[in-house]
């Protein structure tokens, strides 16, 4: 079978220093368009998480993510006292006690990951991109979403990984291996961008240069979105693209702002926020 260059590695993790027995365990599940994450908190501390690919069935994807987060912890789903579902598939999480939008969850999760000084969060997801302003407790004060096209999203990056036969994890590094920054390809539509990139490859552009042109286009695309609501410091990026330095550094350069460095995987921010909402709702008795 041909190698699927877009296929990123699934993973899970748990903190062996935390003993969950008898503690208040809450969970969050973020069923996105491309990936699903589950997070478990023990008394409000990050205990375990997983990140898996979303299939065509949201209930199964949410279950797979949660099962994998629970793996190796000795816990069962019944031990999780309150679960919040978020993301595109949030209403299809059969074991969730409540569904909350990913906008609110990314703000709450971003606040936990980056600290109370964060005011602008850029969530670069698989299928859409959201610019979020939040207050010191992680409550959303303003948000803007672009879900009309795939340019500026993780799915667009996967399309390019396949087109160029470059593993998706290597794209960020490779995009800097150019003598000078090429002009961006189309940032209006990923289909146009792909056509344009095919043309550039036929003209003899090396892969690195095409990758740089796409990272540049992607950064420009989201900066346009950010500029509409304004960037208030501190600034942070969540979502899978937050791990692609080729895009992150170009966004920083275009905005003239340095993004905060995450203490945890930026891709779990939504699920982490959902788990934090779950903790608050459990304490409220809802």
């Amino acid at each position: 079978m041909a190698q699927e260059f877009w296929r990123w590695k699934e993973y899970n993790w748990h903190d062996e220093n935390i003993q969950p027995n008898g503690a208040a365990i809450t969970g969050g599940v973020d069923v996105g368009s491309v990936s699903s994450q589950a997070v478990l908190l023990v008394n409000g501390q990050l205990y375990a998480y997983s990140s898996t690919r979303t299939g065509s069935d949201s209930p199964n994807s949410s279950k797979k993510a949660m099962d994998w987060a629970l793996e190796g912890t000795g816990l069962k789903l019944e031990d999780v006292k309150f679960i919040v579902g978020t993301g595109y598939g949030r209403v299809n999480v059969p074991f969730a006690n409540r569904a909350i939008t990913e906008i609110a969850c990314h703000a709450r999760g971003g606040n936990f990951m980056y600290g109370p000084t964060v005011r602008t969060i850029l969530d670069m997801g698989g299928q859409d991109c959201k610019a979020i302003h939040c207050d010191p407790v992680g409550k959303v004060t303003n948000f803007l979403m672009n879900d009309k096209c795939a340019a500026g999203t993780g799915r667009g990056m996967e399309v390019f990984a396949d087109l160029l036969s470059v593993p998706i994890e290597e794209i960020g590094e490779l995009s800097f291996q150019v003598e000078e920054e090429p002009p961006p390809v189309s940032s209006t539509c990923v289909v146009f961008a792909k056509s344009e990139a095919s043309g550039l490859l036929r003209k003899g552009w090396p892969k690195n240069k095409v990758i740089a042109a796409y990272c540049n286009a992607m950064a420009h695309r989201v900066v346009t979105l950010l500029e509409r609501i304004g960037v208030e410091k501190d600034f942070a990026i969540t979502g899978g693209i937050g791990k692609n330095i080729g895009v992150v550094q170009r966004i920083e350069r275009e905005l003239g702002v340095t993004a905060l460095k995450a203490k945890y995987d930026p891709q779990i921010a939504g699920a982490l926020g959902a788990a934090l909402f779950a903790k608050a709702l459990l304490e409220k008795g809802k």
Partner: protein
Amino acid sequence: MKANYGYLDGSGQYFITIDTDHCTTCPHHGCVTGCPKGLFEIIVDDYDDCVSQVNEAARKKVKYECAACKPMANRPPLPCMAACTPGAITHSW
């Protein structure tokens, strides 16, 4: 919270903004009946406030849905904004 519903594309930026801090103070939510296209609906948001939002089906076509209320000349006040007594609704275009 300022909630922006809409999109940006190659032709421009099309957002309807609802300031939920003002919207939640409104007892009647006149926007729901005021909009001739029925773009608004009432929801309980993530923070348990009762607010208006632009319904999901309309968000990717607000430019076209709102076109009838936005003639090129002699533009009257937009019905949604006129019906919104707390002044929570604005349009970006």
